[in-house]
């Protein structure tokens, strides 16, 4: 009798015993993504998993167990809290406060007008200036945002997509003014336009010219800003929009492959640009499912980069990722409980081998975090790092029958999605036919229905409620003076700058876009001339057009 036969036989015996001697509670046993979970996992569940091929060692291909040999024994993850609100000056103060409190990198949240490429004095910006993040209209604001922060020492992550190339141009200009050459700039641009069409919906141009802008930034950075992480391929927003864990994994990696394809098509060598791609995942409530997702992500990326794209550089194989805990998992009810949710999610990210982490604040279902709430969130990470002993050995859950099974299942399910996407003709055709959007909308609806049928219990929402609950936490208010001040500031700028130069640089940008040149150098010229984001985006709209999505439900 082989070992497997023995395991199987024993398992059958045990199943029979279990069924006579125990009874499950009523209800479904499933993950947050509605994947059913078996009673028990044992050797019989991992027969198709090969230790060397599927698991291996940390720091080595296929990196299932982490991309570094020593993981957190070498260096802790970067505790990077996303921040930004009000004017550039307000956010500059918060940045300095965070750096003084032990944060090791900056992460800029922009307001919606900036994310959508509109100036603060645009009529559609009314009510949104400085509310969800910091308002940036031009280089002048960017200079204030990084005032007193040395760009050669601090790395900056910028969450920006449609106008990403413009913000990068601003950053390069600020560096120049501080005397820091672009070769020395460190940071990350989110610059992941595909997930905007799939999930977050902050798109401006149609998919093809948007993709061209992404490739322009990659090409420019490959040549001139070598330490810059050019795209942070993001599953975070896909998950927040309601996807399952597998969908997050599959759609994000598919996006990643689409960027690789486009950059290769533009004539770049895979090993030139792929090492500067990074990823950004969500960490949701289902502890084991999330850990399996992170492990599977590394393995799939490594395999495709090596086997499919023929990358030679090990750094092209390594999937580095930032994690943010799931905003959509937080509740408005009894918000203090969110500290606990976030802690578990953060722990899953750490056990999943994340390179950097943002922990959400307890008050985020109601508003942007207060300083106190943001501090508790940061402290949560510090407690995980220093007090609970999870950093002592890399990938401590490897070898768990359950976790290895989940990891393999995730990988297989992702491959099935890649096939489907391929059948559509790739990511952009699938976007245009609403494939991702429909899958996500269906999953979001299912999750909501499960909560309403109480198949899924959310503490404080559909169980353990406190009917007379009063919200007792302070709420951060953005003064509407911010908008008035910022509107006045951009109006004043438009008067006092050299408007001839503005027109000239914008004209050259238009010509370059129409001629299909790399627009980065032209955007840098526009930035130096203090053109605003709105002016640059509108110039590009003339060439590229705009995009409206066909809604699917």
């Amino acid at each position, binding site marked *: 009798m082989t070992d497997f036969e023995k395991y199987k036989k024993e398992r059958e015996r045990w199943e029979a015993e279990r069924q006579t001697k125990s009874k499950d509670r009523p209800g479904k046993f499933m993950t947050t993504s509605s994947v059913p979970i078996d009673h028990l996992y044992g050797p019989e569940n991992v027969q198709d998993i090969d230790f060397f091929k599927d698991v291996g060692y940390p720091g080595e291909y296929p990196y299932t167990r982490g991309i570094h040999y020593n993981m957190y024994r070498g260096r802790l993850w970067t505790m990077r809290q996303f921040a930004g609100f009000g004017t550039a000056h307000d956010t500059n103060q918060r940045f300095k406060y965070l750096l003084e409190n032990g944060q090791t990198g900056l992460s800029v949240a922009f307001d919606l007008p900036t994310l959508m490429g509109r100036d603060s004095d645009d009529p559609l910006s009314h009510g949104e200036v400085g509310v969800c993040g910091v308002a940036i209209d031009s280089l002048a604001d960017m200079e204030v945002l990084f005032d007193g922060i040395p760009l050669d020492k601090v790395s900056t992550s910028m969450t920006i997509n449609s106008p990403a190339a413009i913000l990068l141009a601003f950053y390069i200009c600020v560096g120049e003014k501080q005397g820091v050459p672009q070769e020395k700039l460190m940071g990350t641009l989110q610059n992941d336009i595909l997930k905007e069409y799939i999930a977050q919906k902050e798109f401006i141009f*149609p998919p093809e010219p948007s993709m061209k802008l992404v490739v322009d930034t990659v090409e420019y950075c490959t040549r001139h800003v070598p330490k810059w992480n050019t795209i942070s391929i993001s599953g975070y927003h896909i998950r927040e929009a309601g996807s399952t864990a597998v969908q997050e994994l599959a759609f994000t990696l598919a996006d990643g492959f689409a960027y690789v394809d486009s950059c290769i098509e533009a004539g770049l060598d895979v090993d030139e640009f792929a090492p500067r791609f990074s990823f950004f995942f969500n960490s949701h409530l289902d502890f084991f499912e999330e850990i399996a997702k992170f492990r599977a992500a590394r393995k799939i990326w490594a395999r495709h980069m090596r086997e499919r794209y023929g990358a030679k550089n090990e750094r092209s194989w390594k999937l580095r990722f930032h994690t943010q805990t799931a905003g959509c998992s937080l509740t408005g009810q009894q918000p203090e409980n969110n500290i606990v949710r976030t802690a578990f999610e953060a722990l899953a990210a750490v056990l999943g081998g994340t390179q950097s982490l943002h922990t959400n604040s307890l008050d985020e279902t109601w508003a942007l975090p207060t300083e106190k709430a943001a501090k508790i969130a940061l402290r949560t990470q510090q407690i995980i790092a220093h007090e609970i002993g999870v950093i002592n050995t890399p990938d401590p859950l490897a070898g768990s029958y359950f976790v290895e099974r989940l990891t393999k299942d995730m990988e297989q399910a992702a491959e099935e999605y890649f096939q489907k996407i391929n059948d559509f003709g790739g990511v952009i055709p699938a976007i245009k*036919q609403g494939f991702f959007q429909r899958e996500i909308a269906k999953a979001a609806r299912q999750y909501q229905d499960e909560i309403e049928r109480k198949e899924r219990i959310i503490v404080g929402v559909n169980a353990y409620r406190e009917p007379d609950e009063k919200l007792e936490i302070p709420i951060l208010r953005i003064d509407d003076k911010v908008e008035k001040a910022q509107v006045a500031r951009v109006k004043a700028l438009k008067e006092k700058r050299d408007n001839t130069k503005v027109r000239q640089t914008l004209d050259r940008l238009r010509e370059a876009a129409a001629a299909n040149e790399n627009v980065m150098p032209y955007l840098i010229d526009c930035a130096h001339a203090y053109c605003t984001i709105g002016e640059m985006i509108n110039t590009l709209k003339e060439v590229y*057009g705009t995009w*409206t*999505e*066909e*809604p699917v*439900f």
Partner: protein
Amino acid sequence: MTLNPEKLLNDFETGSKRALARLISLIENNGKLADDVRDALYQKSGRAYRIGFTGPPGAGKSTLVNQITKAYRQQGKTVGIIAVDPTSPFTGGALLGDRVRMNDLTLDDGVFIRSMATRGSLGGLSTKAQEVADILDAFGKDIIIYETVGVGQSELDIVEAADTTVVVLVPESGDSVQAMKAGLMEIADIFVMNKADREGADRAIRELSAILHLREARDWQPPIVKCVAVKQEGINDLLTAIDRHYCYLQEHHLLEEKRRERFVQSVHSLVSTRLKNEFWDERARRILEQHIAGLDQRKTSPYRAAQQLIDHFKQSLAKQ
């Protein structure tokens, strides 16, 4: 705002869009609207040119309607759009999302867009859509556009009632075959091959013209217009094709014929709806119940039940 029809009609005559919208709801809901109000509205109509757009889901009809409307607006014409989407047969609800593609028309005073759900009405949909078109016509719109997914017969009836019917296809393989199965080939006055910048567009056009050539020759051969609606390409060609069809209808006096047909169809449909409403009174429903009760022993048959119901109806008419 009051639902008083006379007041609505007054407001309507002074150009109130709110009154227009409310009158459309009354039609849709089979609401009480006196025939003299309907008469007044009908007499004002008859000026507008009616164009129907149909085709398989995802063919880009809304985008095309958006573009063609803008083109008409540039010519100074006003446009009314009726976008029909199916009602879910299971829940009775509907999700109407066609406007999303036409959002830049929302604030144009010369355009009025109304989304309509099919509501599973038995053959009444086409009449209702025509009534809504009549109201938009009476309101002064120069062009009325119907947009429906070409899936069911009732949707096809709507567009067929238009003066010009445009069938929108995309190059996806087998689209024209599907269209033929769905009966779209027979009703088209104009074909649009939308998304013509996609791979396979020329092949799809060849396939389509091959199918068209197999048919008997007719006076009007439907042209195939290549468009890329999202890039505003081919819109002028489509306008020209519609104008040519209009001239053709004029020359052959077919416009009057179409209008007569629509009139006859409306009368037929109204008579049958009204008859049905009068027919199924309290007593008729009871007669049917009795027959159902006798069904177990096969003491009845549908024929016998129907005849008894008709006899009852005739008697009640005689009493009146």
